[in-house]
């Protein structure tokens, strides 16, 4: 683009008057702005003393959980869509023939390496049966790398610990009608989505349970 291109709109710098050139009005208005902040509410969260409260726990991308269906079985049908979608390749699934008549496969092994995970939430997006979901738990700790590789049992235990405080992020379908979940986090066509919170508890998890729990 040449400088004389008619599409270029040249803007003139505003001409400063004597008052502006003195800097002083700008200085004092700046002082006024910062002065106002002196008495404003502080945004600091005293983290270890007071818990960090996520503004929307259902949108937070923390530790994963493996959801159970109404009968307490793992929802996952071992379709590998999450593992395929995962950009960090942190999901490892071994499929086996399902012992239940309503599905063909189930995961014999379902491992997520929480250290490798980048918490992008694409596994959650990819899952056709809403089996893998992210929770709002952020304070997970481990003393070794092995401890941070979560297997199926541990992921299910995350579900058990969070199911009361965090409802399913999207409505389950295909395998079961399931209790309606809160928060329309649009998936697919939106036909299955429900809007508006329905008994959604936005409470935070009471304890950092992963830190207390034994080794996975």
């Amino acid at each position, binding site marked *: 683009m040449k400088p004389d291109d008619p599409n270029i709109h040249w803007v003139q710098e505003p001409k400063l008057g004597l008052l502006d050139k003195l800097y002083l009005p700008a*200085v004092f208005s700046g*002082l006024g702005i910062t002065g106002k902040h002196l008495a404003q509410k502080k945004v600091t969260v005293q983290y270890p003393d007071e818990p960090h409260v996520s503004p929307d726990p259902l949108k937070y991308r923390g530790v994963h959980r493996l959801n159970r269906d109404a009968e307490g079985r793992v929802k996952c049908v071992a379709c590998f869509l999450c593992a395929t979608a995962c950009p960090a390749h942190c999901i490892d699934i071994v499929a086996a023939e399902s012992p239940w008549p309503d599905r063909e496969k189930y995961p014999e092994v379902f491992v997520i390496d929480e250290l490798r995970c980048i918490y992008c939430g694409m596994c959650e997006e990819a899952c056709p049966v809403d089996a893998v979901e992210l929770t709002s738990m952020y304070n997970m700790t481990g003393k070794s790398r092995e401890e941070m590789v979560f297997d199926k049992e541990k992921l299910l235990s995350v579900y058990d610990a969070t199911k009361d405080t965090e409802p399913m992020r999207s409505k389950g379908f295909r395998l079961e009608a399931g209790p309606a979940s809160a928060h329309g986090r649009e998936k697919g066509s939106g036909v299955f989505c429900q809007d508006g919170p329905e008994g959604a508890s936005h409470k935070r998890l009471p304890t950092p349970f992963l830190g207390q729990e034994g080794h996975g």
Partner: protein
Amino acid sequence: MIILGLKILLVVLALQGTVAYLIYIERKVCAYLQDRIGPNRVGWHGLLQPIADGGKLLLKEPFVPEGANKILFILAPAIAVFTTTIGFAVVPFGPTAPGDPSSFVIAPGIDVGILYVFAVSSLAVYAVILGGWASNNKYSFLGAMRSSAQLVSYEIPLGLSILGIVLIARSLNLEQIIAAQADGVWFIVYQPIACLLFFTSALAESNRLPFDLPEAEQELIGGYHTEYSGMRWAMFFFGEYTHMITVSFLTTILFLGGWDLPFVLSASSTGFLAGLAKMIVICVKAFSLILFMMWLRWTLPRFRFDQLMNLAWKVFIPLALANLLVTAVVVHVLRS
């Protein structure tokens, strides 16, 4: 003699304690202006933070970089502390009486008081230049170069701006300048432009924002004290904050009437209690100015170097000269 020694000890210790807590206050002011809380972990509301910081700095390794000029490298922070501290010697922080051991100044009745302060405080540039040069580091060196240019430029408006005061008060003696304002009008009324010039130049002199180019973190890492660590680094800090204290006291003395508080404290009220009250008045005034400097620091962006130089040479010096000329003419006409 012993009393003088004790007084000096007391003043130096008080200065160091004040500096430590000024850093704490600065951090608090900064935090509050940015909607944060600031240090609050050590002690009640973080009040022991300066002590923890001091302990940390004492225990740190005083590192000397390779290729540095060791003697000058060690000397520079000492100069920073020394020059700024002895500058405070003639600054009266309360009413003074010659020969009275309880007068609130270390060296009372120095007739060239203000010249002395300027002479000594401009020596502080040696600390910056030597420190920056001796570090054998390009960032330090650049910071030192900027600093020398800045300090030399702002010395001139700083000196010119007070000449009007000297003409009106007919003295360079700081105590007499206060006496000229006591029970009268503060000099800020007669010399508002001079006050503005003096305060702004003083900000530049003490490397405070918006004129902190010698240590512009984004460009020069730490500026002249990039290579310093531990207590040597702390001494540079100490120098800067002592300079702030001195400059605030000077502004108070020259323009804000010193310990004069109209309708409450009169110049004629003497005695130890009145003296103490006056000391509190001048300290409160100076402290407010320090707070104002901090407020400014967390409000204004840094000047660009050419803007800084333009401001000094094209605006401040002509303004100060014009101010001096007008003051001289008016004083001459009124007195003749």
